[in-house]
């Protein structure tokens, strides 16, 4: 027997869960893995998963770092709605008389349609960061403010209506394909790459874990803890802004009341399923990516299998609980004890 057994890396369980879902589809769902090319675009269930998970993926990446600083950001769903509403307003040229027939609509330049919502989202993220780092509020409460007020602001922007539009250039963000790959997924990959580079090439990753592990100790060891926390929330706002652009562009409309509703919970769920502890101090970016893929492939599986959509939530509840319980210390202790007993019995 190998006595110097290393503990399993924490990504094993999420990967196993994802593997199980894919295996299930390999056996039971015909054509789940087939990828065809239609009009020069890749097409298939797997591609669909990658496209649909992109907004959550982008927000979950940022959430990973927020949670690593032992924080949480529940305002991203509302920031997403604001970002989308601002973008839709700009497509309408900021002209609020858009619904009156024959109104002369002059859309803003594409550059502004994309940059202004992102800037607004970063400002909102900065507000969260300020509240958490400088004022010293608990992250849940600090971001609860914008979660509640933000949705009201988004509805105020759109006048409480659903803002539909058509704009070729902007629609590419959520609906376009680059080299056959859905453009939202390319954005998600870029965000992941950016995040990974920033945390690996600079000491930022280390700082984030240090702040999450012990804020006071990090402060005394010379880390500007306030700045670290502040930047993490700005990044979170930025990512929510991108997700807002993708969703708005994809459905060619902004529904301020419902856009991104409960998406913050999905992002947090993905992070935790991926093995990042909510107590902070450590993060697992790969785990988060797997976590997002688990949630989305689960949803897609349920839909493609023709299960009535009302069962989606039940299945999701069961899977989340299962992953949570498998990852818990009590379960791993139990497995360790049992295997020890079995090997002892085997030896005797």
């Amino acid at each position, binding site marked *: 027997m190998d006595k110097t057994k290393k503990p399993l890396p924490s990504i094993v369980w999420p990967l196993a869960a994802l593997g199980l879902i894919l295996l299930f589809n390999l056996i039971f769902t015909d054509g789940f893995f087939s990828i065809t090319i239609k009009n020069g675009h890749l097409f298939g269930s797997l591609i669909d998963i990658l496209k649909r998970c992109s907004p959550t993926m982008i927000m979950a990446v940022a959430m990973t770092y927020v949670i690593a600083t032992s924080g949480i950001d529940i305002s991203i769903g509302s920031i997403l709605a604001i970002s989308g509403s601002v973008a839709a307003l700009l497509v309408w040229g900021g002209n609020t008389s858009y619904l009156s027939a024959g109104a002369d609509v002059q859309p803003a330049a594409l550059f502004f349609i994309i940059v202004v919502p992102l800037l607004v989202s970063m400002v909102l993220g900065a507000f969260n960061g300020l509240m958490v780092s400088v004022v010293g509020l608990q992250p*849940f*409460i600090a971001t609860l403010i914008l979660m*509640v007020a933000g949705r009201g602001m988004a509805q105020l922007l759109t006048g409480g209506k659903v803002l539909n539009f058509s704009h070729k250039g902007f629609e590419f963000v959520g609906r376009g394909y680059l080299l056959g790959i859905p453009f939202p997924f390319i954005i998600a990959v870029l965000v992941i790459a950016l995040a990974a580079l920033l945390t690996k090439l600079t000491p930022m990753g280390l700082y984030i874990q240090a702040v999450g592990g012990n804020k006071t100790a990090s402060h005394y060891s010379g880390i500007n803890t306030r700045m670290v926390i502040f930047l993490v929330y700005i990044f979170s706002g930025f990512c929510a802004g991108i997700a807002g652009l993708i969703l708005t562009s994809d459905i060619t409309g902004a529904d301020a009341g419902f856009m991104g509703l409960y998406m913050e919970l999905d992002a947090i769920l993905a992070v935790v399923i991926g093995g990042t502890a909510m107590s902070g101090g450590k993060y697992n970016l790969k785990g988060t990516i797997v976590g997002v893929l688990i949630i989305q492939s689960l949803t897609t599986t349920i839909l493609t299998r023709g299960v009535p959509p009302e069962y989606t*939530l039940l299945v*999701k509840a069961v899977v989340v609980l299962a992953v*949570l319980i498998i990852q818990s210390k009590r379960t791993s202790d139990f497995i360790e004890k049992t295997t020890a007993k079995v090997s002892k019995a085997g030896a005797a």
Partner: protein
Amino acid sequence: MISAAKLGFSRRNLPIIATMTVFVVLYMIGGMTFRGFLTNRVFFNLLTDNAVLGITAVGMTFVIFTGGIDLSVASVVSTTAMIVAVMTQAGVPNLFVIICAILFGTLLGLVMGFIIHYFDAPAFIVTLSGQFFARGFGYILSLDSVPIQYDFYQKASSFGIRIGNGKLTLPAIILLVVIALGIFISKKTKLGRNIYALGGNEQSALLMGLPVGKTKIIVYTMSGFCASLAGFVYTFYTLSGYGLAAIGLEMDAIASAVIGGTLMTGGYGTIFGTLIGTLIQGVIKTIISFHGELSAYWIKIFVGGMLLSFILLQRVFVAGSGKRD
């Protein structure tokens, strides 16, 4: 010199005093701006219209006292109403319907509390899957709105004790009873002290030999019970069950507790504060509906602004007394 503490103005009481002041000021603003605002009717309607939120918030406040959170309450409210609707439609005896409806949330809370304690799992995620479960269960019962046609609910929704030109309705009475029970449990019972101790410092509570695990499980069960009761009360207004009802109520309940002076880190707060926190949100809604021209989304912006100012106030007064995040 008379110390401020003797007058009840100790730092401990400042958040609740501030909360009550804001409530009174808001109410006066409403009274001075609109005719007919300072009537019994408006006040009792305030209790009636916010009974569901208030009852849910009491359970939520107990959970927050322990430093936990319960994200499942909103979906429990809507699914309980759905259970009542579906079972009544199927002709199940009313008493049995009520028992089943109340048991649904209570049992869900019990199970969640057990998982949180036994597997040492984060409450946020466990109650989030509780939310998925309850909402999903509601969808399975019916995707459409199910009407409740039964004398009991018709009567219950029109029942009330007249006071002046106001009416103390059944939801308002249930709200007041739940608040009174909540205050009693938090102030006068061993359970209440254990709950505060657990939220203050779980490690110390454990070392002191307090039943930490049992207390945790009880608290989530209580929250589930309150949510189910609120869902039952909800049917008096709507006389129907609908799977998408009460979306976002959990955040309103958390806001009630926080505006009422409860600290999210646990160990500090009052049930009475939660009542005032609920009523403040109610007054904002009433003022906006009296105004008539302001749209409903202003409510969210105002409540957000209230949250901000209360939290900053707490930061100034409570943080000084040694309780930090």
